[in-house]
């Protein structure tokens, strides 16, 4: 394997201690299934063109400048050099300005992870910071110019090394409180909460890393095949939403089904039948409602 290429080289500084470090891309971006845009009339591919909105003439890349709209239709022009001048000169140093307890950090700010590795001379200082942060359960905040922008990164111990995660700027992050402010306060207690906790308990497991071969690609290929053969795929079934009056019953049945499934060797097979069972139960309405509760208590 060839030596990985560093995205950035500089120093990581905590207090008066500095160590030479480099940043490496830790994760590549997910690629979506790309469709090509076609012209419906001709079936040909299309390409994008940039034109002057008034004259309709094509404007080449080098003739494009940035404009900030001050009044309707009035612009202040900023040349690329002027925008670049707003970025401070890089001192090539990630200076740690604060340590933050890991459990307090708002992860919604996270942008991209980079492996932060020391150069040969700096391993001792690097290991010291890594183990110190691990022990104190903190991550470090540092700022520097990365990729021609002033970025804040969060540095945390990760295995033998460190990960520096770039943070989104504060004005780019929506407040969770505001995002949820339209929802009413509702705290669930008693049997409902107990049942739901019980269901979660039966579904405890670990996150299995998935590979890129996703089922969507297969489903899409199936759709294309159907179209080629002149078939139409059946419309997806409408999802049945739990009515508030059904909720407790649905929880009881779920908990009951889970308990039953636990006794059988194959959970997936047992679960597959649950939907059908439930539809029957709904049709049969309330008289049978209590059996679900019984199952749970017995388990």
């Amino acid at each position: 394997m060839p030596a990985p290429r560093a995205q950035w080289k500089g120093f990581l500084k905590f207090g008066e201690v500095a160590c030479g470090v480099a940043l490496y891309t830790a994760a590549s971006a997910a690629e979506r299934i790309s469709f090509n845009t076609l012209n419906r009339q001709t079936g040909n591919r299309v390409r994008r063109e940039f034109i002057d909105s008034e004259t309709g003439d094509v404007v080449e890349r080098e003739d494009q400048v940035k404009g900030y709209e001050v009044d309707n239709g009035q612009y202040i022009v900023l040349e690329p050099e002027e925008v670049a001048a707003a970025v401070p000169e890089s001192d090539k140093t990630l200076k740690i300005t604060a340590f933050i307890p890991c459990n307090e950090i708002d992860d919604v700010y996270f942008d991209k992870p980079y492996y932060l590795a020391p150069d040969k001379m700096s391993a001792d200082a690097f290991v010291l910071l890594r183990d110190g942060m691990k022990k104190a359960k903190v991550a470090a905040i540092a700022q520097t110019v990365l990729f021609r922008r002033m970025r804040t990164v969060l540095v945390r111990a990760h295995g033998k090394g460190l990960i520096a995660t770039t943070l989104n700027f504060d004005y780019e992050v929506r407040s969770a409180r505001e995002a949820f402010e339209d929802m009413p306060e509702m705290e669930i207690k008693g049997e409902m909460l107990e049942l739901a906790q019980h269901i979660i308990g039966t579904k405890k497991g670990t996150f299995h890393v998935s590979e890129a071969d996703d089922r969507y690609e297969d489903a899409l290929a199936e759709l294309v095949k159907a179209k080629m053969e002149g078939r139409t795929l059946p419309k997806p079934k409408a999802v049945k939403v739990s009515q508030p009056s059904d909720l407790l019953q649905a929880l009881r049945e779920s908990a009951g089904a889970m308990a039953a499934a636990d006794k059988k060797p194959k959970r997936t097979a047992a679960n597959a039948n649950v939907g059908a069972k439930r539809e029957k139960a709904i049709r049969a309405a309330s008289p049978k409602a209590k059996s679900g509760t019984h199952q749970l208590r017995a388990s």
Partner: protein
Amino acid sequence: MAIRPYWKGYLKLSLVTCPVQMMPATTDSEKVKFHTLSRTTQNRVVSHYVDAVTGKEVKEGDEVKGYERGENEYVMLEDEELDAVALDSTKTIDISVFAPRDSIQWIWLDIPYYLSVEDPLGQEAFSVIRDAMAAQKMVGISKLVLSRRERSVMLEPRGKGIVLWTLRYGDEIRDQNAYFEGVGDEPADPEMMPLVQQLIKQQTKPWDGKMAADPVQDKLLDLIAIKKKSLKKPTKAKAAPATPSGGNVINIMDALRNSIKANSGKHA
């Protein structure tokens, strides 16, 4: 201000299902927005599509998605047809597994979204799922199709709502061993640990979103304000390049002592 949801669908735990909506947790709306202008005419530059073969403009209504079946062989797919893709995870987040939050490392987190109830009818069901996860200190793991890919997602209660993270695919994470080969297996020097612990303690602060401020955006806004008043050219402010002392093994101990001294001085 009502924001149009990015995605609408259903959240499901076993037999409990409720209608939900989702929006990205990040936004460009507060960013200084520039338009592209033509330098010569100062008019706005807009983009449009032209037919790659005929060179003629393609009207918006004539744009259609093409699925490449072979070289230069496409099948046209309308949006309504795409909705018929037979996969539950396009519309329903069915939570299949629960795991402790700490078991999923930060490196897996890709894009965050805020998940909330779409219809008051589902409020109680949503709250049950959220509160039960919170009470068990668990996050939910599920699958969801977003941007035409089936992604693993993690659901974590947050206030009245839920934060949904897309998780990266296994083959997107680079093998860390290749990067940390140079780091030995020995732990840090036990004599220095108390000093570094002390330094960390001195500099530990509560989390504050302002730590992720953008000084450059402020400068650009200043520049725009200046230009608006007059047409003076700004001069580049030179930052004095720092000269780091380098990672010399011998002086780490001294450097740590100096750091702690410097910090205590500030607090006194």
